[in-house]
């Protein structure tokens, strides 16, 4: 298993290289550049800027130089827009905030979503099941930029319990974490429910029932482990995406995270930052997939890697 994990980690690097190449290519063919401003910049100044950042070198050289910088020095370059900051500064400053928020949100989603799914599966088509389904649909369909301001209006402006935005104390994380957790919560609940319902018809569960065990014992100890496989699958991808920061939630709650850089670095054509966050996301998704596969092995003893 250790060998398997190691091989999988190595396989991440070709993936990153491919992502790097495709992204680099997209930079070259997208119109507009980092020096386009509302107030037109004289041609000579643009040339000076290109020279300063090495954008006047031939394309292949830029490709190789940047890659060399990343691989040897872990240097993703300076930000074109925020002149005194490097990409590593930016990621180092904001990833922890996004990741904390993301982990709390996923934790909430797991802690509430899975039990909700289990309860629904235990009493299919009951009032509780319908209620849970209703909540799941609501949580999944209503976009975060509607729920967010609604929560702000209720909890911060009207009731005054929580601050309207920012990220200084634990209180600031409550509303954004709740908002972020709703969609994953809904997914976890539904997936758990349907997987569990599938599994309850399996032979080994019938055996356990025939043995006279309590229903809840059967579900939790025997059936749940297998039902969690699909949940682990989506859980991996969801966690990867949430950890790097959600643009909407971070904007609505003014949380200084990495999520908004995914969008603003595109409009700003801030290539180093854009490349940095893209590679970061690719790396995290790849690792998340690896973790999910390892989790499979713990959940289902029939799965073996060699």
């Amino acid at each position: 298993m250790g060998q398997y994990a190691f091989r999988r980690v190595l396989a991440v690097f070709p993936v990153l290289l491919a992502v790097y190449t495709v992204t680099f290519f997209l930079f070259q063919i997208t119109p507009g550049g980092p020096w386009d401003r509302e107030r037109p910049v004289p041609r000579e100044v643009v040339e000076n800027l290109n020279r300063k950042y090495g954008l006047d070198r031939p394309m292949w050289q830029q490709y190789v130089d940047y890659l060399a910088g990343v691989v040897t020095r872990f240097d993703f370059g300076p930000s074109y827009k925020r002149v005194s900051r490097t990409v590593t500064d930016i990621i180092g400053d904001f990833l922890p905030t996004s990741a904390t928020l993301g982990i709390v949100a996923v934790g909430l989603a797991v802690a509430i979503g899975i039990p909700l799914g289990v309860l629904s599966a235990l009493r299919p088509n009951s009032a509780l099941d319908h209620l849970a389904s209703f909540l799941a649909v609501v949580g999944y369909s209503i976009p975060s930029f509607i729920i967010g301001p609604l929560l702000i209006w209720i909890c911060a402006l009207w009731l005054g319990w929580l601050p309207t935005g920012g990220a200084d104390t634990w209180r600031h994380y409550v509303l954004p974490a709740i908002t972020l957790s709703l969609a994953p919560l809904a997914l976890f609940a539904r997936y758990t429910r349907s997987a569990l319902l599938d599994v309850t018809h399996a032979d080994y569960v019938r055996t356990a029932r025939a043995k006279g065990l309590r229903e809840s014992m059967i579900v939790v100890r025997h059936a749940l482990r297998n039902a969690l496989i699909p949940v682990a699958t989506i859980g991996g991808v969801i966690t990867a995406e949430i950890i790097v920061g959600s643009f909407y939630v971070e904007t609505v709650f003014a949380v200084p995270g990495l999520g908004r850089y995914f969008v603003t670095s595109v409009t700003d054509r801030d290539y180093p930052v854009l490349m940095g966050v893209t590679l970061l996301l690719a790396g995290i998704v790849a690792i998340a997939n690896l973790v999910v596969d390892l989790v499979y092995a713990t959940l289902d003893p029939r799965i073996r890697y060699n």
Partner: protein
Amino acid sequence: MLALRLVGLTLISSIVVLFACTPSQPATKPTDVPKAAESSKPVEASKPAATAQPREQLFRVASTNPPVLDPGLITDAISIDVVNNIFEGLVAFDDKGTISGVHAERWEISPDQTTYTFTLRQGPTWSDGQPVTAKDYEFAWKRNIDPKTASDYATTLYPVKNAVKINTDGMEPSELGVKATDDRTLVVTLEEPAAYFLRLASTWTLFPLREDIIAKHGEKWVDPDKIVTNGPFLLREWKQDAQLTLERNDNYWGPKPTLQRAVYRIFPEGGSEQALAAYEAGEIDSLGTTSFQIPAAQIGRIQNDQKLKAELKEYAESGTMFITVNNRLPHLKDPRVRMALGAAIDRNLVLTQVLRRSGTAAYTLQPDGIVGRKPDIWQKEDVARAKQLLADAGFPEGRGFPDLTFTYNTSEDWRLLGEHLQQRWKDTLGINVKLDNMEFATFLKWRRGDEWKSLGHTFRGGWFSDYEDPNNWYNVLWDSHEDPGMFNTGWADPEYDQLVKQAQSELDRAKREQLYGQAEEVLARGYPAIPVFHYGGRTLVKSYVTGFAPTRVLGLVPLRAIAIN
């Protein structure tokens, strides 16, 4: 089972109640709900309540994250606003155009008007105690004109001798026509007389810089623990994307500001709703001027609320929004067509109903405060006249006029304007309008490209003064040599070019005004672009803040004038 049903029913009903109680507009906002003593600032005075205790001299304002704080490298209004509070330079202008010496105690101009000798006053120091000397100015100017620095605003230094050759042609920066003959004397030599040079001397690219600090720290010299400044405020803290804190400089040589601390609370771009929510919750004292507009959807509610209405502050801005027209195309070549399009627009309608923003109708391209401006000689709105002009140009009732494209960068406001123009021009002139929008950076690139030159019709344009001098409008925008790099209208008039070139070096004020006035007449006849409105700002400021006075140029807020009651 029964219990579960009850629980379920309660849950369902509370959710229904929750959603039912969400009004489309928050109708009642209990303003006297006791707020939790929660503050998002680490060190904070008590909440602003209607008590008699004196407030801390703390001013909290909404802002977006300033990208850069190096005075030689800034390009956007947010950064300029902060830099103007922590740095200062030779001279400053007020909104009436009166000049005052800041570091410069006095200055002499040579008879041929190409040499300026500034005598610096004794007293101004850097935040680390060193005196500000003329050498700091010499270094800063040479460093900013150096092409390796790649300053966007290097053009501000172009009137200085050799500046253009240094910035574009490889000459050594040491050849720049500026010299510190001693610690308190700065001698500047210009390429040719330039009446607007003192205006440029008040801008940030000409602020002094510390050579040793920049040499030691490189680009990171602006970090709060390394930066060295010379203004009435110090950069105390900069938590990226969260907050930027300035503190009064108690060693400032001049009159000390009343304000003790200023916190720029940073919101993400497009976060005007968040900033407004924070303002209403009492977490900030003003919505600010450089970053956020009051969301159009909230204006109605704010104007109907007694308290909020009293806190609205409108201020004039030195900028004009205009529609750029491609003068090269056959159907747009005729100035009567462009004038017809301009005369058909109801500008007040655009401001109050369509865009719902503050500002004034613009008939001339130049805003108030620019010498030479003559709004009365430009055409006014007149639908009948517009129809007549179009007919005279050969397109009676719009017959035969090709479909007109209006291009804008993707944004809610410009889309509203585009849709309005589409309807307006169709109704009044019978012209069909197609709308085209593109992402911002793509839009900027397209504007200067060949595709625009051959195929483009009109686009959303506008200009804000960098400094209030006719040079920044007449010469920089409509001179046919500058046009390709600016709005690329394709309009050219040799008489205009000659007038503005002459005016640029003319030093006699009256003659200069007369020359620019003549250029204005040519512009009014030629009508290269369609003026729509002069920008005006509108923001919210708490009633206990006094001295909040945004400048007309860029809407900057000098903190030294602010006091908290």
